[in-house]
């Protein structure tokens, strides 16, 4: 195979992987602080993408046309709104169910996701059909052989990488990060040390949801189209990625995201049958991986009380 094509596929895989990783990191964050899975994460992403689109249309209607300003406004609107939504979800649905069985939390967030998704479908004007997403990044491209590097893709990829590095910095170098890690490690002790538990939980959910909104925006800018179902798909993929990486480990989530994207790319390119089977292949490998490593590739430390 031609080297240029390989580079092209790698680039596509990296783009997908970055989006999956961003979603998966959210799952890991929530699981870290509260030991719960927030299944509505993917649909928060949808709502975030639609918020961005709505704010774009709003800006257009008041006559703003500068790409950079619009992009910035969309980013701020989507991230801010989703951070609030995430904190609200944690406050209203997840904290009250802390003592309930894990199945209940799983179900309530699954159902909440359905409510969000259906709300977008039914109440956003003409929400059931795919919506065009504005092209706001410069679309110049560099051709090297068969490899076509588009500038907007490169920008998105860099932005995604920066966000993940920023999150790392936040978690490992700041006081807030220390508090988050403390709560994740041991809630009781963290409380004794004077960490405001509820506030930290809410902040973590806000950060995770803002990450989802960022992924949604990235998805919109990459495909130039969004629909109400992207969240369900990206959510499930992100969840699978977080799980195959191993819950509770940020690196696991990132690894899982890129792994899943890699599987899809391989499924589309290298398998003998039609590329339509790429998802079937990827999910089959996920199931097989779960059978092989039941707690993910980078397992969290579990102890069985026997």
């Amino acid at each position, binding site marked *: 195979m031609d080297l240029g094509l390989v580079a092209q596929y790698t680039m596509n895989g990296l783009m997908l992987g970055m989006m999956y990783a961003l979603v998966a990191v959210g799952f890991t964050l929530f699981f870290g602080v509260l030991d719960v899975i927030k299944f509505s994460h993917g649909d928060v992403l949808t709502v975030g993408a639609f918020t961005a689109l709505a704010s774009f249309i709003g800006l257009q209607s008041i006559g703003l046309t500068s790409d950079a300003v619009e992009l910035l406004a969309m980013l701020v609107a989507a991230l801010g709104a989703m951070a609030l939504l995430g904190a609200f979800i944690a406050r209203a649905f997840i904290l009250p169910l802390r003592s309930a069985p894990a199945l*209940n939390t*799983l179900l309530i967030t699954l159902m909440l996701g359905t409510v969000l998704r*259906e709300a977008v479908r*039914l109440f956003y004007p003409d929400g059931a059909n795919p919506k065009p997403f504005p092209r706001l990044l410069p679309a110049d491209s560099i051709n090297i052989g068969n490899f076509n590097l588009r500038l907007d893709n490169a920008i998105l990829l860099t932005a995604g990488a920066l966000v993940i590095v920023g999150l790392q910095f936040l978690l490992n170098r700041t006081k807030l990060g220390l508090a988050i890690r403390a709560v994740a490690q041991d809630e009781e002790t963290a409380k004794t040390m004077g960490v405001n538990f509820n506030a930290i939980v809410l902040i973590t959910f806000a950060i995770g949801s803002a990450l989802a909104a960022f992924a949604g925006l990235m998805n919109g800018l990459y495909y130039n189209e969004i629909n109400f179902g992207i969240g369900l798909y990206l959510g499930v993929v992100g*969840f699978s990625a977080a799980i195959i990486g191993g819950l509770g480990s940020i690196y696991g989530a990132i690894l899982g995201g890129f792994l899943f994207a890699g599987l899809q790319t391989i499924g589309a390119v290298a398998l003998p049958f039609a590329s339509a089977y790429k998802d079937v292949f990827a999910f089959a490998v996920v199931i097989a991986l779960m059978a092989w490593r039941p*707690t993910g590739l980078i397992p969290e430390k579990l102890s069985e009380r026997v």
Partner: protein
Amino acid sequence: MVLVTAFLIILLRVENQKAIIALLALGIGAVIAANRLGLLKPVAHSFSEREDALGLLAIVATLAVGVVFHEDHFVLLLVCTVVLYTVATLGLSIQFGYAGVLNFAGASFFGIGAYTAAVLNQHTAVPHLLVLLIGGLMAALIGSLLLLPVLRTRGHYAAVVTIAFALLFKTFLEVNDVLGGPQGLQVRGMTILGWSFNDNIEIGGVELSFYLNYFVMSMMIMVLAFVVVRRLERSWIGLNLDALRLDETAAGCFGLNIVRWKITAFLLGNFLIGVAGTLHGMVVGFVQPNNYTFADSLVLVSILLLGGIGNPWGVAVATVIVVIVPEKLQVIQEYRFMLYAALVMMVLLFRPEGLLPRPVRRYFPGWRP
């Protein structure tokens, strides 16, 4: 019981939207009022005392519904769907409620049954009663591919296995041309000993809907499934499964074979779901991937949760609510999934046990804790 049946019949007969809303409000009001007046407790008590009688009454009531609507195709189809969904959720209830094995791919196994019916009825001459059995076995067989990951994973990790399977299954159906792709397949109706189920029956000049055949058939299956599940729950197997769900490690320590019981519960549940799906495929006469999505699996789970996990009666009641109400209230057709989801959230927040929680196991008739 008679009141409830009459209520159901009226509800099914009425077409006017406003009247339906009024009726539903009346029903909800009546239940709340009865609860306030303390009427529900003695009724529930006498039901649990004489469960066989309750079962007979329920069968009679359903048959009465069938007789009243003997020529109304749509209503009978609806009732068939309710009955078969109940069977499927009974299967899920074995998995979730007794053994604690998560399965978020209920609709997929339902679909496997329906697709089996489509393929077998079209290309082979397998007797159609056998097809039912084969449909169930197929669901169990394909489910057994998931056994290893299901057995090895727990909690959230287990959920991802079945969710991935549900997505895999739907994508597979959509891209697979042999199985009709997104358009789906026609399913031939059921024929037993040359008696075609798809012909209308005529007895003494009274025209009966052909759905009545399916209705009787699904009732028989439901009664069978109900008896099996109830017996299972009461037997030592049910005890083992309960122990397994409550604390796997402890159950293992006391010498229960965890693997064996998990496999039993998972496969038996899938078998029931598959049988229900097979018959449903034949009733509807048509299968397509869009009927068996992850969202539909969630609807099945929400029925289970609404009814009260592990209580077969609760499941039956919840199926009636979840299937019939949106069909009758065309206003909410569009908002169906959203309302289910909101309903389940309310139940989880305010009544986490479901509408009819599973009663405590009883060893001595008449003994009150």
